[in-house]
C-alpha cells in the first residue's frame, strides 16, 4: 500500500515538474513589454497584402532574443504602432532614434551616421559632383544588405572557437550580478570581435545585385562580381565555409573603414584602384611577401571574347584538347567492344 502511494506521488510530482518546465518561457528576458507576441508568436501568422505578396508576420522569440536588436522594444523601430490590434504599419526606418543610449556619449542611438557614410560611397545616390545617378531605385538601402543578425559569439578561453565560454562568464559573474547584462555584454563584444557573416554569406549578399545580369548591364559594370569571385581560390574556399579567406569586403574597403565607405575602383583613394591594389593584397595577414605584381591577377575575369579574349581562347583551347583526345579514344573503345561481339566477321578474309 505504502509503496503504491509513494509511486503515485512520484508520478504526480514528475508531471507537475514537467508542466512547470514546459510553461516557463525559454528566455524570460525579452523586450516584449507591450505583449506583441500575444499574436506574433504563432508560426504561420501571415497575410496576403495588397500587392498579392505573402507577408509572414511570425516572430521567432528565441531567435529574436539572440539577435543584436533583442533589447530594442518592438515600437522602438515600429514607431507608428500606438494601439493593439494595430493597422497596417509602415516599413521600418533604420535611421529612427531608438530608446537605447550610446553609453560613451549618453546620446540616443541611431544609424544616421552610417547613412551619411553610405551616401558618399560608391553606393550613394548621387555622384561626386552632387548629380543624381541613373537608376537610383537599384541602389541599396540598409535593408538590402542587413537583416536582424544573430549574435555570433567567439570564445577565447583556452582555444578560439565559436560559442559562449562558460569559463569566461564565470569571471564576469564575480562583479556583475545581472545574468542578462552579462549575456548581452559578452555577446555584444565577442560578436563584434569577428565578422558576423562568413565570406560565403557576404558574397551571396553582394550577389543579389552584382550577379543580376540586367542590373549589371544597366549600370555598365564589367562583371558578375560574385560569380567571378567564386571562380577564384578565395571564392572556392569560401564556398567550403573557410572563414580565413577574403570576401568582397576585405579587398573593397580601405583598412580601418566601414563597409559603408566603399569607393569605386576608379577612385584613386579606393583600395581596389590600380595604384593601391598591390598594397591591398600585401597586407600582413594575406600575402605579406607579395610584390605589386601579384595584384596583376584578375580577380573578376569574364570568360567571354569581348572582355578577356586571351583567357577565353586559352580555355577554349583546353576544351578542344580534352574533346580531341577523349572522343577518338572513346570511339576506339566503343568500336572495340562492338568488334568483340563478332570476332570472326570481316569483309576481307586473311590470306592463308
Amino acid at each position, binding site marked *: 500500500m505504502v509503496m503504491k502511494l509513494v509511486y503515485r506521488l512520484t508520478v504526480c510530482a514528475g508531471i507537475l515538474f514537467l508542466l512547470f518546465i514546459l510553461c516557463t518561457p525559454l528566455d524570460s528576458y525579452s523586450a516584449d513589454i507591450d505583449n506583441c507576441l500575444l499574436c506574433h508568436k504563432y508560426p504561420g501568422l501571415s497575410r496576403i497584402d495588397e500587392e498579392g505578396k505573402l507577408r509572414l508576420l511570425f516572430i521567432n522569440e528565441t531567435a529574436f532574443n539572440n539577435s543584436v536588436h533583442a533589447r530594442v522594444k518592438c515600437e522602438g523601430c515600429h514607431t507608428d504602432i500606438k494601439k493593439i490590434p494595430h493597422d497596417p504599419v509602415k516599413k521600418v526606418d533604420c535611421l529612427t532614434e531608438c530608446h537605447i543610449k550610446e553609453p560613451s556619449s549618453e546620446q540616443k542611438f541611431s544609424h544616421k551616421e552610417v547613412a551619411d557614410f553610405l551616401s558618399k560611397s560608391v553606393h550613394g545616390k548621387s555622384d561626386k559632383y552632387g548629380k543624381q545617378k541613373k537608376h537610383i531605385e537599384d541602389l541599396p538601402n540598409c535593408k538590402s544588405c542587413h537583416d536582424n543578425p544573430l549574435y555570433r559569439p567567439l570564445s577565447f578561453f583556452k582555444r578560439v572557437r565559436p560559442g559562449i565560454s562558460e569559463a569566461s562568464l564565470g569571471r564576469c559573474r564575480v562583479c556583475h550580478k545581472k545574468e542578462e547584462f552579462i549575456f548581452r555584454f559578452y555577446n555584444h563584444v565577442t560578436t563584434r570581435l569577428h565578422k558576423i557573416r562568413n565570406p560565403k554569406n557576404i558574397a551571396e549578399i553582394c550577389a543579389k545585385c552584382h550577379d543580376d545580369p540586367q542590373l549589371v548591364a544597366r549600370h555598365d559594370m564589367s562583371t558578375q562580381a560574385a560569380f567571378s569571385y567564386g571562380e*577564384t581560390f578565395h571564392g572556392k574556399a569560401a564556398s567550403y565555409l573557410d572563414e580565413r579567406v577574403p570576401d568582397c569586403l576585405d579587398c573593397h574597403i580601405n583598412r580601418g573603414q566601414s563597409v559603408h565607405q566603399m569607393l569605386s575602383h576608379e577612385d584613386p583613394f579606393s583600395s581596389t584602384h590600380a595604384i593601391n591594389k598591390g598594397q591591398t593584397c600585401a597586407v600582413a595577414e594575406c600575402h605579406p611577401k607579395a610584390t605589386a605584381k601579384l595584384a596583376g591577377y584578375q580577380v573578376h575575369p569574364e570568360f567571354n571574347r569581348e572582355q578577356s579574349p586571351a583567357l577565353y581562347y586559352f580555355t577554349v583551347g*583546353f576544351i578542344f584538347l580534352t574533346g580531341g583526345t577523349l572522343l577518338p579514344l572513346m570511339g576506339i573503345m566503343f*568500336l572495340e567492344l562492338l568488334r568483340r561481339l563478332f570476332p570472326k566477321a570481316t569483309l576481307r578474309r*586473311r590470306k592463308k
Partner: protein
Amino acid sequence: MAKQLMIKTKDGEKYFFRFTVNQRIQHILLASSVITLVLTGMPMKFHRIPWAHYLYKLFGGISVAPVIHKIAGSILLILFAYHIIYVVCNFYNGHIIPLKKKKELRLGKLLKRIINLPLIPNVKDIKDITALLKYLLYLTDKRPEGAQFTWKEKFDYWAPFWGIVIIGLSGLIMWHKELATTFIPGEVMNYALIAHSDEALLAALFLFIWHWYNVHFSPAVFPMGTVFLTGYLPEELMVEEHYEYYKEIMKKEGLEHEILPPHGSPMPESMKERMPA
C-alpha cells in the same frame, strides 16, 4: 640491372616479363598520388555541385584537404624528378657506356639509340593505329602485331608525362604565388589556374576511362589486370596486344615450336590439347 626471367611458367601457363620491381613501385606511387590529387582537387573545381561538398568532407574539408593535395602533389613531383634521373641513368648505363667501350660515341649514333628506345613513338605506331582501325571497322580480321610497347602504352606514358609538367608547373606557381610573381606577371596566375584544372580534368578522364579500360575493364582483362602488381603478363594478352614482340621473345627463349597463332585465328590441332578449355 639484374637479369630478369623473360618467361615464367605457373600451372602450365606462360607469363611474360613486363616491368621491374622498381618500375612497379614507381607506378604504384604515381597511381596513388594521382588518385589522391584527383579526389582532393576535383571538389575545388566543381565546388558549385553538391557532391563535391560530401567528397571534400571525407578529406577533412577546407582546412585539411588542401594540405593533403599539396603533400600528394609534392610526392608526385619528387617521383617525376626521380623518374627522369632513372631514365637518364638507365640510358647512360645501357647505351652510353657500351658505346664508349666500343669507342663509337658520336652524336648521330646517340640520337639513333634515343629514337630506337622502346617508348619513343615511331612509324610503326601509325601503321598499327591504321591497322587497328581497319580491324575495328571489320575491313580485316587481322589485328596489328604489337611491339614491346604498343601505341596505347606510349600514349599512357607520354600523356601523364606531359600532364605532370603542365599541372606540376602551374600548381607550383599557384602554391608559391608570392615568390612566382616576383618574376612573372600576376596575370599568369589566371592562366595557371585554367591550365591546372582543365589539364587535370583531361588527365583524370583519360586515366579513369581510357587507361582503366585497357588495363582492367576491357573484356579481355576484366575484372582486373594484374601486371602492375606481378610484373608479368599472361600469354593470351601477350598474343593479343604484343604479337610481334611475343614471337621475338619465344624465339629468343628457344620455344619456337610453342608459338601460338595470332589472336582470333583458329588454333592448330597440335596446340589445342595444350590450351586450357
